[in-house]
């Protein structure tokens, strides 16, 4: 290859983001006749997602694809996805947010702060569902239980809204803490629960209630782009744009597979009716105004998001 760029992501070789990244790397190589090679480092070999934005800014890395839940420290508006208005919202509606004006504003702010460019539409990671070591029908069953939070005031507020007690436990400590009984329930993406085989650690129930929606933001540093001939730089954006729907389909399939894997391993998977989700959302919405202020999110952006989701009036 004439040009090589380094890309870093979290997640092991079998994770759906790794699969997509590998596919994209191949697509880029094919589109450029092998002139541009993207060296993919997964498993946080080079950087944890948390540290990827800074590495891009400092010029230690060319391409990253961090999850939007690690970006709140750079721009609090990224935590908008922790707000109750997105609880139980179907994926097509969520895409109106990330692919629409709200996503545009978020991406623009990051681009300016980090001196990067967003490569294209965000890649879906999937929904955080509810997983528990005891029988649950919905988040209402969290009352009085210790619930693991993946961090962020929005997550804690959600747990408290259902009368649970949030405990902050990093993902690395989850299997051990779970098998020791340090907590009883957690919000996590089902694919992650499945790949960590958390049924071994005590999970017996999963409620596919789409509590939070997570996405990855593909980004490339401006300095990396400057070093490329125009055609190759264009190929980076074009391959992504041409294939992103296929990539999204890959992660959606992985999420659906995850639920059947959980079921195959003895976990009871509950799929709540849309009406139940809407009722829960309505209850949660009472906490939203205070949360917007607490999370320091731009109210205008919240207005825009509400306008964009037809499901919420």
């Amino acid at each position, binding site marked *: 290859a004439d040009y090589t760029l380094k890309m870093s992501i979290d997640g092991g070789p079998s994770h759906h983001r790794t699969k997509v990244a590998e596919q994209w790397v191949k697509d880029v190589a094919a589109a450029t006749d092998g002139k541009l090679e993207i060296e993919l480092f997964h498993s946080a070999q080079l950087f944890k997602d*948390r540290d990827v934005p*800074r590495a891009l*800014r*400092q010029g230690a890395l060319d391409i990253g694809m961090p999850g939007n*839940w*690690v*970006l*709140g*420290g*750079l721009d*609090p508006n990224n935590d908008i996805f922790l707000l109750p208005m997105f609880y139980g919202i179907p994926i097509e509606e969520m895409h109106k947010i990330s692919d629409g004006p709200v996503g545009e504003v978020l991406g623009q702010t990051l681009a300016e*702060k980090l001196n990067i460019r967003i490569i294209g539409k965000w890649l879906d990671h999937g929904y955080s569902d509810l997983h528990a070591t005891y029988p649950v029908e919905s988040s209402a069953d969290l009352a009085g239980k210790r619930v693991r939070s993946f*961090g*962020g*005031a929005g997550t*804690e507020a959600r747990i408290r809204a259902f009368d649970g*007690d*949030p*405990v*902050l436990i990093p993902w690395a400590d989850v299997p051990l803490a779970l098998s020791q009984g340090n907590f009883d329930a957690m919000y996590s993406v089902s694919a992650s629960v499945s790949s960590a085989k958390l049924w071994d650690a005590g999970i017996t129930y999963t409620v596919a209630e789409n509590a939070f929606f997570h996405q990855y933001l593909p980004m490339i540093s401006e300095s990396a782009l400057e070093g490329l001939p125009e055609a190759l730089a264009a190929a980076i954006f074009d391959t992504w744009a041409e294939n992103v729907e296929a990539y999204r389909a890959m992660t959606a399939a992985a999420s659906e597979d995850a639920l059947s894997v959980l079921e195959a391993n003895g976990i009871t998977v509950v799929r709540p009716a849309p009406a139940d989700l809407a009722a829960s959302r309505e209850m949660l919405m009472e906490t939203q105004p205070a949360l917007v202020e607490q999370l320091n999110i731009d109210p205008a952006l919240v207005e825009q998001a509400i306008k964009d989701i037809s499901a919420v009036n």
Partner: protein
Amino acid sequence: MSKFIRGLIGAIGLFALLTYFYQIVSTWLFHDYAVIWFSEVAVYGLMWAMLVAASELVRVDGHIRADFLVSRLSAAAQRRLEIFNCSVGVVFGLLMLWHGTFLTLDAWELNERSPTTLAFPLWVYYSAIPVSGALLAPRFAIRLWRWSFRYDPGAMRLSHPAEVS
């Protein structure tokens, strides 16, 4: 100065121990008054303190080194090597100070926070690098000066065991 730094490190350590302990006990016993971000503060505080303690380790000659070869060399050879080592130490400390200052200012200007409830201002934690460098460089310089101009072949040997308690 050294006493002040030792005291500061100890105070940070005691604070981290007590607050983290409070976090554990409060989540068990009195939920309403529980604080779940003391552990995050403990990470930033203790790591900061330990990076700063690296300069104290130079003072007490407590940094770990492979002594297999050097301990067999003559006193004169050890002296020459240690003078070289200390010079590298001075340069490394200055590099930490220089790049660490940019790193810290950058985080300050971007108003970078930790992606948690606490939203801890990261420049505070990052300042460990320039502060550590600013203390390391003079410590290595003092050691360099002692080994160059106040050399005592009887007492100053690299084979001496580390003095860390």
